[in-house]
C-alpha cells in the first residue's frame, strides 16, 4: 500500500507492506534519511527521535500508517553541514559529539524544547533530555551546546 507522508516540508509517497511498520524504517530505508537511528525499538533511548507537528516523538514506535498528514521533521530537515541549523552549529562549536549515534535524538529533543522555552536553564535542559541516552558520556558538552544554541536563535 502507498502512504503519503509530509517529511521535511516535502510530500513523499512510500510503498509499505504493513501500515504498522514504525515510521523509523520508512524514513531510513524508503526515504534514505539516516538522521533518525535505530537504538532500541522500545522508545527507551531516543536515538530515533523526530518531530511530529513540532513534538519530539520516538519514530521507532510510531506506526507509519498513523502519521497521516502531520508534519514530520528529521535531523536533515533542520539543516545541512553547509547550512546548519543553530542547534547543529552549536553542537559543532561545542564539539558535542563522540560516536554521535545518539546525537540525532539530542538535537531533535532540544529543538522541541527550544521551540517552547527559548531560554531554558541547565536543569531544564537536563530534564528535557532525561529520556535521551548517551553512552559515550558527552552529556556536559550536549548541555553546553543547547545553551549555546539559545544565544543563536
Amino acid at each position, binding site marked *: 500500500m502507498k502512504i503519503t507522508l509530509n517529511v521535511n516540508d516535502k510530500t513523499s509517497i512510500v510503498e509499505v507492506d504493513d501500515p504498522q511498520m*514504525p515510521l523509523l524504517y520508512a524514513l531510513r530505508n524508503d526515504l534514505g534519511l539516516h538522521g533518525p537511528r*535505530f*537504538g532500541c525499538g*522500545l522508545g527507551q533511548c531516543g536515538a530515533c527521535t523526530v518531530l511530529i507537528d513540532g513534538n519530539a516523538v520516538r519514530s521507532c514506535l510510531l506506526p507509519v500508517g498513523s502519521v497521516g498528514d502531520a508534519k514530520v521533521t528529521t535531523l536533515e530537515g533542520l539543516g545541512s*553541514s553547509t547550512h546548519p541549523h543553530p542547534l*547543529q552549529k552549536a553542537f559543532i562549536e561545542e564539539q558535542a*559529539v563522540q560516536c554521535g549515534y545518539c546525537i540525532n535524538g539530542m538535537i531533535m529533543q532540544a529543538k522541541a524544547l527550544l521551540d517552547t522555552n527559548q531560554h531554558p536553564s541547565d536543569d531544564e535542559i537536563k530534564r528535557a533530555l532525561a529520556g535521551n541516552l548517551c553512552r559515550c*558520556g558527552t*552529556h556536559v558538552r550536549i548541555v553546553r551546546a543547547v545553551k549555546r544554541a539559545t544565544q543563536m536563535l
Partner: protein
Amino acid sequence: MLISTLPRREFLKAAGSLIVTFSFAGLLPRAASAADAAKTVALDQVDGFLSIGADGAVTVYSGKVDLGTGVRTALTQIVADELDVPLDTVSVVQGDTSVTPDQGPTYGSLSIQIGGMQIRQAAATARAALVSEAAKRLSVAEDQLATRDGAVVAKGAVDRIAYGEIVGGKSFELKVDAKAPAKDPANYRVVGQSVARLDIPAKVTGEFTYMQDFVLPGMLHARVVRPAAMRADLLSYDDSAAQHITGFVRTVRQGNFLAVVAKTEWAAIKASGALKTEWSKWDGLPEENQLWAYVRATKINHSDVLQTVGNTAEAAQAAPRKLSATYDFAIHTHGSIGPSCAVAQWQDGKLTCWTASQATHLLRKQLALMFGVPLEDVRCIYIDGSGCYGRNGHEDAAADAALIAKAMGGPVRVQWMRADEHGWDPKGPPTLIDYRAAIDASGNVIAWESEVFIPDAPKTIQVALVAAELAGQPTDASHPGNIQQALAIPYTFPNIKATAHRLAETPFRPSWIRTPGRMQNTFGNETFMDELARAVGADPIDFRVRHLNDPRGVELLQRLATLANWQPRPARSPGTGAIVSGRGVAFVKYELVRTYVGAVADVEVDRKTGRIRATRFAIAHDCGQIINPDGLRNQIEGNVIQTVSRTLIEDLKFDRSTVTSLDWASYPILSFPDVPDVVIELIDRPREKPWGAGEPTAAVVPAAISNAVFDAIGVRLRSVPFVPEKVLAGMNTA
C-alpha cells in the same frame, strides 16, 4: 629512496581516483577497488601507511580506527604536521584489511601511543625522502631545504617542488626508518591544537554514514533468533506463520544458529517474532545472588604473581595491626546505543564483510577459521559504528551476516535488536579482589597483598564468535583481555605481593570493556589505599605522595590538590544531616608505565534513601604530548561520566538460563539529571611520548566515589555498583 626511477605501479596511477569522496573526503565508506589488492599492508613500509597523489592529496592507511574518540582527526593532525601539508589535503582510510596494515585491535588506549607513532614515523621517513629527492632535482644541499604546505622549498629562495610532482601517483618503495628525524615539537603547527573534529558536521546533520546506514544493491535483511537459554539446543522450529509475512524470504538454520531473512527490515523483524521455536532446557548459570560465592569456588587453573617486593608474609607476621578487605565488581555490558550491525557478501568463494569491528584484521582471521577458507579470501572493511567501548557485538554481527550470506548467495545485512545487544554481547567478567595489609607500631604500612580472581586467558586475545559457537563452526576460546593489568601498585611499601588467580570458568563469554581489569583493580587498590590512609590518620593525598618515588606522579597529585581546592582531610566524623557531602581522591599510573591520572570526586549521599549523587569531578591528567587538547578533554569527560554510570548503577541481571537485563529499563545507565560537572587540568608535555587517554581516567572514578562516600557517611563501599541498598546496609552495620 623514492620511486621516481622505478616503474609505476598500476594501482597508484589512479591513486587520486580510488577514493570515493562523496561530500566528505574519507568519511564515507570507501569503494573497494580491484587495484587495492596490489597495495602493500606491510608495517615496515612507508607505502603501508601513506600515499601521495599527483594533486598532493595525502591518504593515510590506518589499522587503528576511530570508534568515536576522535582518532581520525588526531591522526590527520599528526600526518599533516609531520609531512608539512595542509590539514584538508589529508584523508584517512581505516581498518580495511586489504589496504591498511595490521596495527592490532583498536583497544588499550594505544591508537595514538602505538598506532599514531607508527604512522608518524612513516611520515617522517617520507618527508626525509621527499627532501632528499628534491635536493637532487634542485641541485641544492638537503640542509638548504625545508618543507612547507605540501612542498619542498629552498631556504631563502623561490625554488619549490610540490610533493605531488615528486611522488604523486607513485609508491615510495621505502622501509619505515626508525631513525628518520621526526619534527621538533617546537615547530608543530597543528599537533597540540584543538583542531575541530572532521566527522562532527556530518554527524550532526544526518550526512554521516554509520555501519547501520550502509547498503548494497540487492541486499537482504536478516534477524537472528537466539536460544531461550544460553546453551540450549534447538529442538525444532516452525516458520509457517512467518511465511505469511509479505517480504519473508526464508529461515536459515545451522545447528543452534537460527535466523530469518526478508526483503525488508520490518518483515525480518516481524518474521523473527513469528517464528515458533522449541529449545532444550539449560540452567548452567550460577544463582545471581550467589555470584561471589560461585567465583570464589571456581577452580583456579593457575596463579600468577604480578608484583613482588620484599616478603609480605614475613613482614606481616609480627605486625601489630592488620587490615583485610574484599572487593567485588559487577558484570557489565558494553551498552552501545546502536545495536551491532554488519553486512556480508560472498562472491566466488570469497567473503567481504563491512563491519564496525575495532579489530578488522583479527576478525578476518576469526572468519577465515570459522569458514575454513584461506585468510586472503576474507576482507573486512571498517565503517564507523555506534561506540563500542571494547569488544561488543560488532564482530558477532559480522559472523552472523557471513553465515547467513553464505546460505543466501547475495549480500545480507544483520542488525541486532536491543535484546541481542544486551543479552548476547560478551561481558566484562565478575571480578573479586582480596586485600591484606600490615601496619607497624609507628603507623607505617609494611606489607600489602592483593589477590584477584579473574577468568583464565588462552593464548590469543579474542572473543569467540557467537555464530560459530551456535552453528558448530570452529572458533577459538574467549580471552578476557589483559585484565590482570594495574593490580600492581606504584607505591613504595617495603613488602608487596600482587597475585592473579586465573579461573577455569566464568558465567558469560568474557570480553574487554573500557579500562578492562584496570578499572576493577584500581577500584580495589585505590579504595584500600584510602582505608590505609584512614587507618594511620593520614590525609589521603599526602599519604599517596609520601609513598610515591615518582616526581611526575607527585606533581600530578599536587596539581590535582590545587585544582580541587583540596583541604587536608584526615579521618573525620561521619555527617549526620539528611544529605551529606564528601570528597574522595584516587590516583593511577596506568599499568605502571604510562598515563597518570588523579581524580577528586565530590558526592552527596541521601542518608534516608541511600542514593549517591556524584556532583563534580576534578581530574588532573598527564598523557605526555597532547595531540588535540579538546579531543582529549572530550575523552576524559566521557570516561568520567560513563564510569560514574557503571559505578553507581550498572549490574547485569540473569537467571540460571540467560541474561535478563535485555533493555534500558532492566539495565539502566546514567541520564542527564545525574551527570556530574567535570573540571580538568591537562598537563601537556610536548617533548614526551604521547600516551593513551581512552581509558586511564575511567580507572580512578570508582575509588574516588567510594572514598568520597566514606568521607561523607563513614560507610566503606567495596562492591560495585554502589546501589542504594548497599549504602543503607552499610549505614545499618556501621
